[in-house]
């Protein structure tokens, strides 16, 4: 069957309307800009604090919203209707991912503006951020497959939120506990490393290793998601 953009668009619009009317979930999008505004006014502009906000956006908005969108369909028995419709799984997930992707983009731009973050090389940073958002969308989808309701989704997403938004503190702990060095390979830390390099005047060629790191994470998470999806849907 052909991949139909009309159906993706229909699902996207439906999810947008549902999301905007569900204040319990949609109010999280105000968190990062508010924090960014406070940071900006306080004059904090270290690269870590900018990325604390960006990584928080990824965990709290991208992953959480994606997770809730999927969990809610399951909770309200609407997923069955969607699966029986001509829409393929790819189309259903694309429609949902499109919403969380656009939300992430908008919130990151607003937050960066408020916290006065101006990267030296905007293309490289933008590519890295877009790649990272694919990782978090995958993470959200994976958690959404496990959650049976929005309530469960909110609980499941908390560990991910802690790990990925405050993950930059782990690097400091790693000085004391060498075992934590593994954490340096997490996608959020890779993103911070990349941004630091960029601030030091690095170009596209210099940050390939970090970009590759993020791409590997994207592939791992989507592989896991697809495997879990196949398993869960057979039951």
């Amino acid at each position, binding site marked *: 069957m052909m991949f*139909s953009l*009309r*159906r993706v*668009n*229909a*699902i996207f*619009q*439906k999810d947008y*309307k*549902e999301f905007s*009317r*569900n204040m319990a979930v949609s109010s999280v999008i105000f968190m990062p800009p508010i924090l960014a505004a406070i940071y900006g006014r306080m004059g904090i502009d270290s690269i870590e604090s900018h990325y604390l906000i960006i990584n928080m956006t990824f965990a709290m908005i991208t992953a959480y919203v994606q997770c809730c969108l999927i969990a809610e369909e399951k909770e*309200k*028995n*609407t997923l*069955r*209707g*969607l699966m*029986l*419709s*001509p*829409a393929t799984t790819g189309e259903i997930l694309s429609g949902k991912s499109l919403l969380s992707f656009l939300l992430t983009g908008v919130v990151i731009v607003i937050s960066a503006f408020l916290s006065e973050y101006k990267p030296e090389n905007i293309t490289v940073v933008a590519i890295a951020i877009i790649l990272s958002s694919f990782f978090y969308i995958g993470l959200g989808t994976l958690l959404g497959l496990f959650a049976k309701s929005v309530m469960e989704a909110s609980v499941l997403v908390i560990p991910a939120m802690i790990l990925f938004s405050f993950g930059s503190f782990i690097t400091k702990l790693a000085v004391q506990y060498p075992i934590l060095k593994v954490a340096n390979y997490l996608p959020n830390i890779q993103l911070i490393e990349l941004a630091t390099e960029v601030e030091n005047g690095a170009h596209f060629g210099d940050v390939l290793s970090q970009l590759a790191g993020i791409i590997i994470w994207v592939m791992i998470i989507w592989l896991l998601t697809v495997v879990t999806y196949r398993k869960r849907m057979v039951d």
Partner: protein
Amino acid sequence: MSLTFVNAEKHINDTIVFPAFDLSVKAGCITAIHSSVNVRAQLIDLLIGNTLLSNGNIQVGKDDIRNGIRNIGFLFLEDGLYDRLSVEEMLFFYKRLYDTDLLVNESMRKIQLDTKRKTKIGQLSYSEKKRVQFACLLLQNPDVYLLEEFDQNLDMESKKIVLLLLQQLRSEGKSIVMLTGNMESAVIAADEIYRLDDQGLHQVQLETDMEEEGMKDDVSKAADLVQPVRFEKIPTKVNEKIVLFDPPEIDYIESNDGQSFIHIKGESFVSPFTLKELEERLLPFGFFRSHRSYIVNLQKVREVITWTRNSFSLVLDDSEKSTIPLSKTKMAELKNMLGFK
């Protein structure tokens, strides 16, 4: 297009859900399959493609169901609607999802919710939600409609609207299958009724051959009805006890699987007599055979409902407001009794 079960059989481990049966659901016909909840759930899983038959196959038209199920439209008992969308938005979503040319306004008018087009689905009543679900199904426009307990807990108005819609769909040549555990709703809506259980598939006879049966019974009746004493109470069996009831206490009597069940204040008791015998005994007390498998106490009837031109129900004045099917021929008879011309 028709839905055909060929030698379909399902068992889970050692338990037989249903033995092999053949059934062809014709186009332009409403077929009811009366079954337990478990059998119903299994049938739905099979049709969705979640499980496979142990043996045999199911076909839609000429295609095996395993090759895709695009031509069946399902109406599930759980609504599966988006509470935060308005009726209109929900229907537009389905229109886009199924990419149809059918008009949203048209389907909204058919379920008579045009006045509530802007209302959020979460604020609708249960029956109205069911109607929205129906409208989604109409937009989907499948060849085979599969309805799971569609009239459970529906209010009168919605039931009428839905039954009328089903008549329309039937005249358009759609095949409609209703899965239900409620014989009354099957009798009211369907043309053909089957019972499916671990004994297999059996057709439940509707009223057409009622007259013949009456003739047959006449012969044996004369012998049976010699009673030494005039005795008016109706005996029923509860476990090993025999309980006697005064006829005016009885709400209605239903025959199921050749057994007569006497319904009194929401409870049912098995009677050793056939419906024919009970009818003879109860006629003097103002009882009325409203349908091949129902006798009703006319004193308890509150309302006569006309669903469509040839399907009717009686609503009783008991605590559960039971509805009893009333067949077309009996409707004429009842009108006579009531003095209508």
